[in-house]
């Protein structure tokens, strides 16, 4: 199971980094979201992988899974969710004020560089 989880985190991080480096705000938002997913799974794994074991005290339990990373992930998810919502609103505002969705708000957008628009 370890290699599968590691692979998933790796792929999500790669895709996230690639999308974050794109020139359009929408791709950047998606990239940051994927990075947040990757880091959430990563945090979760840092409590070690356990199957079918309780996180809170249980008289019948033979072992426990680490509850702290679960609490950390919960916090991280909430924060990432809020930040993503804020970023989407900001990206829309930038689209409205700068007239295009390039991250640098270029003066002459899409016409010259149609290849970059759809990613």
């Amino acid at each position, binding site marked *: 199971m370890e290699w599968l989880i590691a692979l998933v985190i790796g792929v999500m991080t790669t895709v996230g980094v690639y999308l974050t480096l794109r020139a359009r705000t929408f791709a950047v938002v998606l990239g940051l979201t994927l990075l947040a997913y990757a880091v959430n799974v990563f945090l979760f794994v840092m409590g070690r992988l356990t199957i079918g074991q309780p996180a809170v005290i249980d008289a019948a339990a033979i072992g426990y899974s680490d509850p702290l990373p679960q609490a950390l992930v919960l916090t991280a998810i909430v924060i990432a969710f809020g930040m993503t919502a804020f970023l989407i609103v*900001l990206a829309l*505002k930038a689209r409205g004020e700068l007239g295009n969705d390039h991250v640098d708000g270029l003066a002459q957008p899409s016409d010259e560089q149609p290849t970059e628009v759809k990613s």
Partner: protein
Amino acid sequence: MSHLTAWPVFLPLIVGFVLLFARLGGLRLQRSLNLLAVLGLIFLSLELMRVAVSGVHQVYLLGNWIAPYGIVLVLDQFAALMVLITSVLALAALWYAIAKNIDQQGAHFHVLFQLQLFGLNGAFLTGDVFNLFVFFEVLLLASYGLLLHGSGRLRTKAGLHYVVINLIGSTLFLFAVGTLYGVLGTLNIADMAAKVAQAPADDLGVIAAAGLLLLVVFGLKAAMFPLYLWLPAAYANTSAPVAALFAIMTKVGIYSIIRVHGTVFGAQAGELAFYYAPWVLGLGLATLLLAALGVMAARGLREQVAYLVLASVATLLIGVGVNSPQALSATLYYLIHSTLIAGGMFLLADLIARGRGVHDDRFESAPIMPNAILLGSAFLFGAIAMTGMPPLSGFFGKVLILQAALDQSWYAAVLTVVLVSGLLMIVAMARSGSLVFYRTQSVAVLPGDTLNSSAFMAVAGLLIISPILVIFANPITAFTDMAALQQYDSATYIEAVLSTTAKPGVSR
């Protein structure tokens, strides 16, 4: 266990939410509430300072859970100093915003202002790395709102960059925190420091890597080379009081490096003791050179002040990188100076830009601004302080840092870079001063706003701190010496945090 340590965190939070409803009572109510709260915060931080000077760590157990399991707030001299600087800077920034009606340009200025202080004070007082992450997010979210306050194309563009780069920083922070937790099994700073000392040799590589990743995150906040590119645009394009308040934001990064790295990888850490210091020193030197070039290349006064902030951050990084109690003491002295004077310079640059009307803050020939002599004198005063010329506090701060660097093997590089960049900055400031104040057109009509004396008071209040720092240099350096020694004594910190017992008879 007194609740005093927790109040600087709770007061802005409570006031922030009260201000949300105070909107119904009108702007005057919001303004007076906010001013009262900031004044209260100053008194509170003076009281904290009085308690901290005793040299005993004040550990506050949140929810009465004992140390490695619960979250703690820790007050020592360094933290008390940061909280005090923040509240003084906040008072000046708020006063300026009210005097210039900047708080009216958008919704919820006062609410965001208090939440910003909540995040800052929390970051200074917390003793837990994950809690530090949460407070970072709080102060960042408030700063996003403040940065975009008012509006304008350039502000939105700079804001977008600022938000994206900080979100990436948050992701890296979580990766670093996750790795450290995976290896050490704890996130309490004191407990981490104790665990690093006993870590098996196999784990040291992973711990070192995670520590450096954390350094990248704090370096991003502090605008360390090569992660500073967001700073000039963000600071130059936001409103003046926000830029002034943001002078403390870069120092949060510096503070976190000193607090987290200095404690976890402190003297007790064995093989990893202070392994980060050469990185900080080298990157600090690179940042300082590039910041000096930026000061020379700036096209407007606000951008120039933003690069001056960068230069001051770089000087602080060098002080941290030199890595001795003496250097840290000098760094703290320079930190007080650079934060407050940079805040004053942002406000002053805004007054000058408004006085020049359509010419704004660009370095070009413009009609004489109203009250040019007063503003020009203030500019000269601020420029002397910022570039580190005698007789003001910037000079003494730099001398102290250079003196501490003499014991270091890199002293030649440190001396060369600091002195050359100082010269470049003096030349650049002299040039911009003469362009703005001397090369004027003789036009009879007043070009821009006349000087608002109430707003000027905020500038004067911040700039006057520079001579005060010089006159009272002896007691202040005595204090920073104590604070630096306390910070370097990580064994006492660990002992103080981990031995604090829960208050009996209090239900959780």
